[in-house]
């Protein structure tokens, strides 16, 4: 996310310094920014000249000391409290008290992160949303010891970076992660109670509630591990009040995802209206016509190699035992 935030800053005309622990990670981040900008240029959103200027404003370092004299430093390291604390302690020593130190945390208290610093009054939260170049919102979080001036200054900087700031106090989940919790959790509960199916709930929320995506589609997109962690963090932070308890099922799915290291596909694979048919025979042809007639997105594949890993439903029609075995054993692709 750090690269995305750096891109936003550089696009808004700020001289931007991107830090990571190794040049390899920096190059990865810069590579993402380059391909994003290239896409913007190809779609005519920015000129080649602007692209060059933005990239020229981006500098990189593997030494925290280089940040000395900066106006604002935004930290977006992995969500580990000790790691964040350590970085803030170091930055606190490197930068004078006029430098604003911000954390992009979504699950820790800003006050806790600022606890080790000499100047907690300039430490605050700037919570960006993914992907930062596209999402307008930034939650500006005032820690218990953050001054109003620091918050005003950061709010103003966010506006100048083209973002819409929303100020919030340092409370678990801030605004969005907290208020959005029932969208996922209550949907899971309705499903667990057997009151409605995944597809029904998603469609109702889209067509009756006018939400852009249903809760299950969205959970598939953001990842059940991420969603699980967000609920878990709120539950713990609110001292285990019932309102934030995990819904049944979520544990199972999130662990499946964590162990397999994959994102999404848990629900949409059950619901998405598309399928692939494998096998060159009359039955395949008829299935294809029937599915298309029913409004499904169906493709006929002659070879397993053409299959994309995300295809939700695959129908295999061969009558040969050997062929079946051959195909199913390769189904991991």
């Amino acid at each position: 996310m750090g690269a995305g935030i750096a891109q936003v800053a550089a696009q808004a005309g700020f001289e931007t310094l991107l830090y990571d622990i190794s040049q390899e990670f920096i190059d990865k981040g810069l590579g993402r920014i380059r391909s994003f900008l290239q896409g913007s240029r190809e779609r005519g959103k920015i000129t080649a000249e602007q692209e060059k200027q933005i990239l020229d404003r981006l500098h990189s370092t593997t030494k925290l000391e280089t940040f000395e004299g900066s106006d604002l430093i935004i930290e977006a390291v992995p969500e580990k409290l000790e790691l964040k604390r350590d970085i803030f302690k170091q930055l606190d020593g490197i930068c004078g008290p006029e430098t604003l130190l911000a954390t992009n945390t979504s699950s820790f208290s800003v006050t806790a992160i600022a606890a080790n610093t000499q100047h907690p009054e300039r430490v605050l939260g700037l919570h960006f949303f993914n992907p930062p170049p596209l999402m307008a919102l930034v939650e500006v979080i005032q820690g218990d010891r953050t001054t109003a001036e620091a918050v005003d200054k950061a709010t103003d900087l966010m506006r100048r970076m083209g973002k819409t700031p929303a100020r919030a106090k340092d409370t678990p989940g801030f605004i969005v992660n907290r208020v959005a919790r029932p969208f996922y959790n209550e949907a899971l509960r309705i499903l667990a109670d057997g009151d409605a199916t995944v597809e029904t709930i998603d469609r109702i929320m889209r067509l009756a509630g006018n939400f852009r995506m249903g809760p299950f589609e969205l959970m598939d997109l953001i990842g059940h591990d991420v969603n699980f962690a967000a609920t878990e963090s709120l539950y713990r932070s609110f001292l285990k009040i019932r309102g934030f308890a995990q819904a049944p099922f979520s544990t199972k799915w999130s662990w499946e995802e964590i162990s397999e290291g994959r994102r999404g596909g848990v629900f949409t694979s059950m619901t998405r209206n598309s399928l692939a048919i494998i096998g060159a025979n009359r039955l395949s042809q008829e299935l294809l016509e029937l599915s298309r007639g029913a409004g499904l997105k169906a493709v006929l594949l002659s070879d397993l190699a053409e299959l994309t890993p995300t295809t939700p439903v695959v129908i295999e029609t061969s009558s040969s035992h050997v062929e079946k075995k051959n195909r199913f054993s390769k189904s991991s692709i």
Partner: protein
Amino acid sequence: MASWTAKPERIVGFATFYPLEDKKVIELAAGIRTAESAIQSAEQLFKSIGKETFRVKDTPGLTFPRILSLIINEAARSLEEGVATAEEIDVAMQLGVNYPHGPLRWADQIGLDEVLAVLEGLQRETGDDRYRPDAPFKEIGHRGFSRRDLRQRFLFIQRRSGETMKEAVIVEALRTPMGRHGGILKDVRTDDLGAYIIAKLIDKTGIDKEEIEDVYFGCTNQAGEDSRNIARNASLLAGLPYTIPGATVNRLCGSGLEAINQAGRAIQTDHGDLFVAGGVESMTRGPWVMAKPSNAFQRG
């Protein structure tokens, strides 16, 4: 509910929130003894008004109202705890997770009594504390606010939490022809003239008359046909319900403008969302004014 009826097989539940206009889907629920034919006719009925239906199980709030009520409850709780202002909570949810509306304004639009009903139903049926309505809802339940008060509940909190003023806009403007003194309009009563334009305005905008908070009219003569609060008399003649009040203001030549300014200020300070404001005057029909005798049998 079906258990109260003699023919429970014809009772079908449905859940949605006001307004229906933006809902493409309505959820239907069958009770234990609801007949299949009853569900089917309900489905047909909604289909005929252009709504798709989904069958879900009979639980408080079904799906959409249940999930949304909990989101609103959490937003209300955050507001009461002072996490952020109402405006910021709404903006954050719209821009951070692409919600179609901010949850607090959404609640004001739906009516807090509706949201409260879903939360209380869930709490009653499940016994689960997670559905406990937050403070502002309970206050509503206990005080028995009217619907109009309910709608503004979060706006009040918003004002308290120091949000900037609302913006007032002019939705539509109309004017009658102007006549010369003793000219073509000499036979039209002043109150009828005012009523005519109010009625046309409502026709043209298609607004719901019940939604009007107040009618402000400027008038300088205020004697004879335009006396005794012409704003009120013209509204009644225009067919506005008697429940919509009216007030007449006088700043002589600036009276109509004053009425519009007053309505604008009322909107900015959250005293209402929709006002009719204007002015009316007929110099032709203004009565002669003669002083009354100072006592019953004037001498000389």
